[in-house]
């Protein structure tokens, strides 16, 4: 696991949890449930995390988490444009997971259902909001994604803006279900350059993480 990924992954494989697991093996009768989850909660709190969701995501979850995020920010008296900037990055990241996660299930349960596995984490760090999304991607898609992210990282504010204008007038890429604009929109609303990382899982898949500060 790379260093950046370790830093980004809020649920740890952290020392506390490993410690708990060892204790559990040594003394199976110990009341560990609350302690175990309290450690996870503490780990999230220590990292300044406001919300974290890991599991199967859907458009419905996007909507509900998005509402909660906006309400939380409104209670903290963030102004409308700031709330919308954070919300915008959140929506684009969630929709990227929903559309492009390599771990999906779909079917019908009375209505069409499509669920994509991934995680989204929102927190505060050095006075800025950060949003991290993580999901499985196919190794074959990694080079192209890297290339696009590196291109965005190499652009300054004006460069991002003209790239957006150019892509706004293009037809979407093959295989893209939305607009090719999503990542540019994210980079545009970010206050610092975006951070990304990949962690190889096996011959076919990697775990992809994108961290954006707003």
């Amino acid at each position, binding site marked *: 696991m790379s260093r950046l990924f370790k830093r980004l992954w809020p649920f740890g494989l952290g020392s506390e949890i490993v410690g708990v697991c060892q204790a559990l093996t040594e003394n199976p009768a110990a009341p560990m449930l609350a302690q175990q989850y309290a450690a996870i909660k503490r780990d999230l709190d220590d990292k300044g995390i406001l919300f974290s969701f890991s599991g199967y995501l859907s*458009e419905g979850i*996007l*909507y509900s988490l998005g*509402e909660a995020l*906006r309400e939380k920010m*409104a209670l903290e008296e963030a*102004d*409308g*444009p700031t*709330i*919308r*900037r954070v*919300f*915008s990055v959140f*929506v*684009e990241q969630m*929709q990227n997971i929903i559309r492009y996660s390599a771990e999906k299930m779909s079917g019908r349960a009375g209505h069409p259902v499509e669920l994509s596995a991934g995680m989204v984490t929102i927190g505060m760090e050095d006075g800025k909001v950060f949003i991290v999304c993580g999901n499985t991607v196919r190794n074959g898609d990694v080079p192209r994604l890297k290339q696009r992210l590196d291109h965005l990282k190499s652009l300054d504010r004006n460069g991002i*803006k003209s790239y*957006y*204008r150019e892509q*706004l*007038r293009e037809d*979407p890429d093959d295989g893209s279900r*939305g*607009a090719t*604009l*999503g990542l*540019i*929109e994210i980079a*545009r*609303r970010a206050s610092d350059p975006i951070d990304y990382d990949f962690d190889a899982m096996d011959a076919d898949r990697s775990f992809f993480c994108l961290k954006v500060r707003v």
Partner: protein
Amino acid sequence: MDSLIIPATGRTPGVSFDFVGGHLRMTGESYPDDVAGFFGPVFDALRGYLSCPDGGPIRFDMELLYFNSSSAKALMNILQMLETVAKAGRPVTLTWCVEENDESMRELGEDFAEDLRHVVFRMREIPAGGGP
């Protein structure tokens, strides 16, 4: 021709296209779970209206407070349709409403207006607090 009225929901915009009066308006926020499903009927109605030869002036008020990147593409399509009829001589005015201090939306307005040559583009500031 009938008007196209679609009430706003939490994530789809309010559409109020008064084709008789030539006044088109979009309000609220746009990040539908199915962009093509939402905008398809809007495009169809607009295409039908723009192909009618009456040629009266058109006023389009863009009052969205937020739209996602997929909706941006859809909005661009709408503006391109309007630019085409404006180029053919029909007067079209686009008013891009921006909540005060919303620099992102102001910049987006400039992005969208960049290659409008025949549509008259106006930026209008509205007071803050119009929505979340």
